[in-house]
C-alpha cells in the first residue's frame, strides 16, 4: 500500500514544473533507495513547501522508513535537543554545521541505533509544547486509513487541485497532501500563503479547486473580502484547526453555495492523524457549531467524570474517539521508537462535548488547560512557566490567540514577555496578548479563577 496513486501529480508553483505518473514514481523510488541505505533509526525531515521536501517524505514512506516531520524554521537549539534525544539516522533538509556525531551531510556516524517499530510511518511534533517537544507516533495504516476517509467525505477525486496552504509538519497540512495524492489528485506546492499575490495568481493559473484553512485563514479571507466568483475553479473550502466563529462559517458557506461550491467544517487532533469528524457540506447550515459525525470507520463516545459512557444525546462529557487512524502513542526519546501500539485505537481527546440525536459532535470546551494559537495547540500552564521571569502570570484562551495576564507588569514588560513566548514556541508574536494585571481573581481554594479571567477577554 502506498500514498501515491498512479495519477497523482505534484506541481511546483515556483517553476511551473508538473511531476506525475512514471516520472514521479521513479523520483520517489530513487529517493526511497537512497534513504534505505541510511543507518538504523528514525529520519528527521525539515519539510518545506517545496518539491525536494515532498519527494523525501514520499520516499521515506515508500521505503518503509519512519520519518519525523519538522518545522524547517525551527531554532537550531530545539533541533539539537531533539537530535540528542532521538538520535535520528539522518537529518534531511538542513545545511547548517552538523551536530556532534553527525557527518557533514547530517548522517549519524554511529551505525547502531534503535530500530523503529515496523508499523511506525510518521511522527509529528505535538504543537505548542515548550522547548521539550514530543512526537505523536502514527502508523502506516493509520495514515492511509485517515487519508482514505477524508477523501471519501470530501469527495476528492483525480480532478482536484489542492494548494499547500498549511505547513506539512502540521498534521492538517500533511493530511491535505496525503488525501489528494492517494486519490490521484494534484497537489500544488506554493509557499507564499493566502495574503500574497503569487498564491492567488497560482490559484488561477493552475486551476486550484480547494483551499484548506484554520480559523485565522478565514479571518484573513474575510479581511481580503474573498470572492469565489473571481476564482471559478475554486469550489471547496475546508476548515479545521480550532473552532471558527459561527458567523464566519455561515458567511463562507453562503458565499460558496451562491457559486455552486461547498464548505466543510472538520474536527481533529494530531493524535488521530488527524481527522476525526467532518460536517457534510449540505448539512452545515442546519448544524452550525457542530464538528460533524465521526469519519467513516470511526465512532465517538462521551464519558462522564467517572469514566462511564453517556448514552443519552445532548449530555456533555469528555469526547472519546475510536478508529483505525488513532496514533500508536507518543515518543519522548529514542527507546520509544521501538514501541508498538499503546492506544488500541482509542483516543481520549481531552475535549469536552456532546453528541446530538443525529450523532453530530459539538465541542464545548477543554478538560485540560489548553489554548490555540493560530491553529496550534498550546499548554496554558507551560506559557505561564515560560514568562515567570517577568512575574506571576495567568494564561487563558481567547479564540485563535491566548491572553496572558502578567501581575504588576508595565507595557514594556508585557511586550518583552510576548516576544519571549513567540520565540520559545515559534509562533507569531501577535498570537500572544500579554496584558498587565493587578493580582488575579481567586477561587475559595486559593487557586486562580481562570473562568473569571476568561470572562475579561
Amino acid at each position, binding site marked *: 500500500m502506498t500514498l501515491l496513486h498512479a495519477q497523482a501529480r505534484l506541481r511546483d508553483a515556483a517553476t511551473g514544473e508538473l511531476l506525475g505518473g512514471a516520472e514521479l514514481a521513479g523520483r520517489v523510488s530513487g529517493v526511497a533507495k537512497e534513504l534505505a541505505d541510511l543507518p538504523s533509526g528514525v529520519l528527521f525531515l525539515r519539510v518545506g513547501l517545496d518539491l525536494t521536501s515532498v519527494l523525501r517524505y514520499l520516499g521515506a514512506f515508500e521505503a518503509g522508513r519512519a520519518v519525523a516531520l519538522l518545522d524547517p524554521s525551527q531554532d537550531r537549539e530545539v533541533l539539537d535537543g531533539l537530535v540528542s534525544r532521538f538520535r535520528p539516522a539522518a537529518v534531511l533538509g538542513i545545511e547548517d554545521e552538523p551536530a556532534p556525531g553527525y557527518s557533514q551531510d547530517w548522517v549519524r556516524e554511529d551505525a547502531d541505533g534503535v530500530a523503529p517499530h515496523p508499523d511506525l510511518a510518521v511522527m509529528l511534533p505535538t504543537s505548542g509544547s515548550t522547548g521539550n517537544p514530543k512526537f505523536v507516533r502514527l502508523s502506516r495504516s493509520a495514515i492511509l486509513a485517515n487519508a482514505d476517509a477524508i477523501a471519501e467525505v470530501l469527495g476528492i477525486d483525480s480532478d482536484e487541485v489542492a494548494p499547500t496552504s498549511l505547513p506539512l509538519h502540521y498534521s492538517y497540512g500533511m493530511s491535505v497532501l496525503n488525501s489528494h495524492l492517494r486519490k490521484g489528485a494534484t497537489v500544488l506546492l506554493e509557499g507564499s500563503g493566502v495574503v*500574497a499575490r503569487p498564491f492567488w495568481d497560482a490559484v488561477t493559473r493552475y486551476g486550484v479547486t480547494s483551499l484548506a484553512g484554520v480559523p485565522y485563514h478565514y479571518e484573513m479571507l474575510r*479581511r*481580503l473580502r474573498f470572492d469565489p466568483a473571481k476564482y471559478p475553479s475554486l469550489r471547496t473550502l475546508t476548515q479545521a484547526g480550532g473552532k471558527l466563529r459561527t458567523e464566519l462559517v455561515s458567511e463562507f458557506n453562503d458565499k460558496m453555495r451562491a457559486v455552486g461550491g461547498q464548505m466543510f467544517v472538520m474536527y481533529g487532533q494530531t493524535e488521530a492523524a488527524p481527522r476525526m469528524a467532518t460536517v457534510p457540506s449540505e448539512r452545515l447550515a442546519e448544524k452550525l457549531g457542530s464538528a460533524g459525525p465521526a469519519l467513516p470507520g470511526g465512532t465517538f463516545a462521551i464519558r462522564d467524570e467517572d469514566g462511564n459512557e453517556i448514552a443519552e444525546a445532548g449530555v456533555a462529557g469528555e469526547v472519546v474517539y475510536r478508529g483505525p487512524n488513532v496514533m500508536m502513542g507518543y515518543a519522548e526519546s529514542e527507546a520509544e521508537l521501538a514501541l508498538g501500539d499503546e492506544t488500541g485505537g482509542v483516543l481520549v481527546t481531552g475535549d469536552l462535548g456532546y453528541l446530538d440525536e443525529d450523532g453530530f459532535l459539538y465541542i464545548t470546551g477543554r478538560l485540560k488547560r489548553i489554548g490555540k494559537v493560530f491553529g496550534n495547540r498550546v499548554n496554558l500552564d507551560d506559557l505561564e512557566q515560560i514568562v515567570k521571569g517577568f512575574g506571576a502570570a495567568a494564561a487563558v484562551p481567547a479564540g485563535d490567540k491566548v491572553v496572558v495576564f502578567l501581575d504588576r507588569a508595565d507595557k514594556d514588560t508585557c511586550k518583552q514577555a510576548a*516576544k519571549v513566548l513567540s520565540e520559545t514556541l515559534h509562533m507569531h508574536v501577535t498570537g500572544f496578548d500579554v496584558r498587565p494585571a493587578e493580582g488575579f481573581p481567586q477561587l475559595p481554594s486559593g487557586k486562580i479563577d481562570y473562568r473569571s479571567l476568561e470572562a475579561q477577554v
Partner: protein
Amino acid sequence: MSLNDRLRGVFVDALQLDDSVDVENLKYRDIEEWDSVGHMALVAAIEDEFDVQFETEQVIDMSSFKVAVDMLKGFGVAE
C-alpha cells in the same frame, strides 16, 4: 515626522522588530516576523496610523516596505 519614519515605526511596532532589522529594505517573508499572520497585523496597523483603508488587491500586493510607501503616497499621505 516623514512618511518613511512613521511607516518604519509602524513596522517595528506591528511586527515587533529588533533594532538590527533594515526595515526600509524589507520584503514579505524576508524575516519570520513578516509572515502571513504578521502581514495582517501590519496592514491593520498601517490603516490605523494613516487613517486609510486598503483594497483587497493592495493588501495582497503589499510585498515590501517600499511598495507600502508608494501605496500610502497614492492615498495622498505627505512625504
